C-alpha cells in the first residue's frame, strides 16, 4: 500500500514506550508486561487508582500499597509506590501494622475476593470494626483466577466453577453488606466498566479517614466468563452496562448479586467515626491526661493536614470533573 504510514512499533522493552506511557511515573515499567489476561478487569482498576492518586494531591512517597495473593495480589508488584506483596489473606493485617507504625502513610490494600473475603475474611471484618484508617479495594471477579477458576465466597449461586462443576450451591457474601455491618465508614461498589465513577470514588476514599471499602466487579475472561459461557471481556462490559443499577446511599442489605442479575452500584455508605488511632489517642488523653505519651499525631493535626491536601488537590480535581458527571 503505497504511502501508508507504517504502524508504530512498540515493544515492552522499548524505552520510548515506557516513557510515553502516561502512567509511567506511577508504574514499575521495568516489570511490564504484566501477567493479566486480555479482557481482565484488574488493569482498569490500577489505571483508575493511579488517576485518582494523581488528582488527590497526595505525596506519592507517602502512599503504600499492600496486596495478598492471587491475580489481584500482583497489583502491588506493578505500582510504583512503597509496595508489599504479602501472604494469602494477610494484606489487611500487614497494612494495619504498616499504617500504625507510620501513621503519616496512606495505606491502600488492593486484592481479590478470594484473598480478602475467604482466607482473609476475619481480618476484613475486624479492620472494619476498628475503623482502621485503610483504603481497601476488593477486585471481585467471582473466582480464584491464579489457581484455575475455583468457587469463592462471592461466586453467585448456580454459577459454574472448577470446584462446583455442576453449579454453585452455596450462598455468596454480599461484600458491601459485610463491610457495612462490620463497621466500615465508607462503602462503595462499581464495575470495571465504570472507570470514571470508580476513579471519583477512589479519590473520595483516599480522602476518607477510616476504613474505606470499595468493591469492583471485574471480569475473569479466561475462567469465569468462559466456564459460564458468558463470552469475552466485551460481553462482560455489555452485561455491566445493561444490568448496572446506580443507587447511591442504597441500604446495603439490598445489594446482593445473583448470577447475571442486576448489580447495584454507587457509594452506599459514608460516615464519620474515630479511626482506631484517633480512638487510642483520644481515649488515653482523656483518661491519662498529661502523663500520656502520644502515639503518632493528634486528631486535630491530622485534620489540618487533610484540609491542606484538599486545598492542593482542588485544581487537579476540577480537570477530572470536567471529563464527566460526578458519581
Amino acid at each position, binding site marked *: 500500500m503505497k504511502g501508508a504510514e507504517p504502524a508504530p512499533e512498540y515493544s515492552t522493552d522499548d524505552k520510548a514506550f515506557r516513557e510515553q506511557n502516561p502512567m509511567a511515573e506511577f508504574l*514499575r515499567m*521495568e*516489570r511490564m508486561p504484566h501477567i493479566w489476561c486480555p479482557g481482565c478487569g484488574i488493569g482498569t482498576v490500577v489505571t483508575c487508582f493511579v488517576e485518582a492518586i494523581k488528582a488527590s494531591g497526595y505525596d*506519592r*512517597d*507517602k502512599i*503504600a500499597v*499492600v496486596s495478598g495473593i492471587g491475580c489481584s495480589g500482583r497489583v*502491588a*508488584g506493578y505500582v*510504583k*509506590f*512503597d*509496595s*508489599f*506483596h*504479602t*501472604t494469602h489473606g*494477610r494484606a489487611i*493485617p*500487614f*497494612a*494495619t*501494622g*504498616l*499504617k*500504625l*507504625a*507510620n501513621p*503519616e*502513610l496512606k495505606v491502600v490494600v488492593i486484592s481479590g475476593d478470594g484473598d480478602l473475603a475467604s482466607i482473609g475474611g*476475619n*481480618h476484613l471484618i*475486624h479492620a472494619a470494626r476498628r475503623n482502621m484508617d485503610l483504603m481497601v479495594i476488593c477486585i471481585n471477579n467471582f473466582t480464584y483466577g491464579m489457581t484455575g477458576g475455583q468457587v469463592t465466597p462471592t461466586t453467585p449461586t448456580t454459577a459454574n466453577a472448577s470446584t462446583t462443576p455442576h453449579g454453585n450451591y452455596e450462598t455468596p457474601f454480599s461484600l458491601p453488606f459485610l463491610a457495612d455491618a462490620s463497621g466500615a465508614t465508607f462503602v462503595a461498589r462499581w464495575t470495571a466498566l465504570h472507570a470514571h465513577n470508580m476513579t471519583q470514588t477512589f479519590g473520595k476514599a483516599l480522602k476518607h479517614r477510616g476504613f474505606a471499602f470499595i468493591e469492583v466487579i471485574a471480569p475473569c475472561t479466561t475462567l469465569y466468563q468462559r466456564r459460564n459461557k458468558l463470552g469475552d471481556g466485551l460481553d462482560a462490559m455489555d452485561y455491566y452496562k445493561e444490568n448496572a443499577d446506580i443507587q447511591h446511599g442504597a441500604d446495603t442489605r439490598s445489594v446482593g448479586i445473583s448470577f447475571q442479575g442486576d448489580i447495584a452500584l454507587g457509594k452506599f455508605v459514608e460516615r464519620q467515626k474515630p479511626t*482506631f488511632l484517633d480512638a*487510642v489517642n483520644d481515649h*488515653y488523653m482523656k483518661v*491519662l491526661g498529661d*502523663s*500520656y*505519651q*502520644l*502515639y503518632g499525631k493528634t486528631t486535630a493535626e491530622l485534620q489540618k493536614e487533610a484540609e491542606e491536601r484538599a486545598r492542593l488537590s482542588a485544581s487537579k480535581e476540577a480537570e477530572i470533573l470536567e471529563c464527566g458527571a460526578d458519581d
Partner: protein
Amino acid sequence: MDGDHALAEGALAAGCRFFAGYPITPSTETAERFAERCPEVGGLFIQMEDEIASITANVGAVWGGQKVMTVTSGPGFSLMMETFGLACMMETPMVVADVQRTGPSTGLPTLTAQQDMMQVRWGSHGDYRIIALVPDSPQECFDLTIEAFNLAEIYRVPVFIMTDETVGHMHEKVVIPPAEDIRIVERNWYMGPKEDYRPYDFNGRTAAPMVKAGDGYRFHTTGLTHDERGYPALTPDMNKQVVTHLIEKIESNADKIIRTEEDGIQGADVVVVSYGISSRIAIRAIQQARNAGIKVGMLRLITVWPFCETKIRNLARNVKAIVVPELNYGQVVLEIERCAAGQCRVISVNSCGGAVHDPEEILAAIKEGANQ
C-alpha cells in the same frame, strides 16, 4: 518480676514500641505488661483478631520503621508459622517469644514444656534459618530479649526466645540496668542515593541496609522468590541465590551468634547438655553426682539455633557420655546425636512435658553414662 513481664521490659529497653498480640496462656502476661506500659513510653499495643494477624501486623510495622515484638505459645505459634516464612523471605528483623506449654494441640495449656524446639527451626515451609535463644531465668528473659533485638537487626531475621511456662511464671529478682549501660543495635538504615537503593543483597554474609515505607524509596518486597530489587524473579537459579543467602548469612556468622555456658567440662566423663528450665533442674543432679565422685560437666545452650556443632563434636571425642534432659520426647538430642556421630554415648532424659524433671532421673542418667 516474672519471666513474662521481663520479656516485655526487655523489649521496651531494646527500643521496641510496637506490639501486636493475641492472648494465650502462658504468655499473656507479656502482652498485658506491654499494653500497660505503652501509654507511658509512646508505644502502641494492639490486640489483633488472631495470632496470624498479630504476627503479620508486626511484619508490616517493621517495614513502617518500628522495632516489634510479639509473644505466644504452642497453638498460637503454630498459627504464626506461615508468616515466619514471610519474615525470613522478606528479611524482616523481629522478635517473637514462645512461652512453651505442653502439646500437641491444646494439650496442657497451663503446664510447662520445651516441645517447640524443632518447630521453631523447621516449622514454616521451605529452607531458611532463624536464631533461637533460650533463657533459664526472668533475668535472662530481660537480657536475651535485648540480645534478640540486636541479632534481629544485624541479620535481618526473626529471632525467637524459646522460653517456657515455668520460667515465664517464675518470680525472681530482675536487674534493669540504666539505659546507657545497655547495648542497643539500631537498624542499619540505608543512607545512599535513592535510585541506587536495593532492599536485598544475597552475599551470604551480611544483610542489606533497610529503608522504611514513606521515605520516598518506593521500593517493593514480596514473599515470592525475588531479585535484589525485591521484584519477583521466578527461576530456580534465583531461588538458589536467595535460599543460600538466607541460610549462609546465619551459618557463616554462627560463631558470632552462638552463646553457651560451661561448667566443669575439662576432664569430665559425662557432660549434661541442656537449655532453659531443664538446665536449671540439671544443676541439682550434677551437684549430687559430683558429691558421689562422678566427674560431670555442664554445657548450657543459650543459643539453640544455630546449633553449636563444633562444640558438641569436640565434646563427644573427650567424654564417655552426653546426657540430654529436655521437656519433650527428644528433640535437640537428635541434633546432639548427629554431631556426636557415635563418638560417645548420648542419653536422652526426655519427658512428655507438663512437669519439670525430677533431678533423680537426670542423676540416674549421669550414673549410667559414667559407668561405661
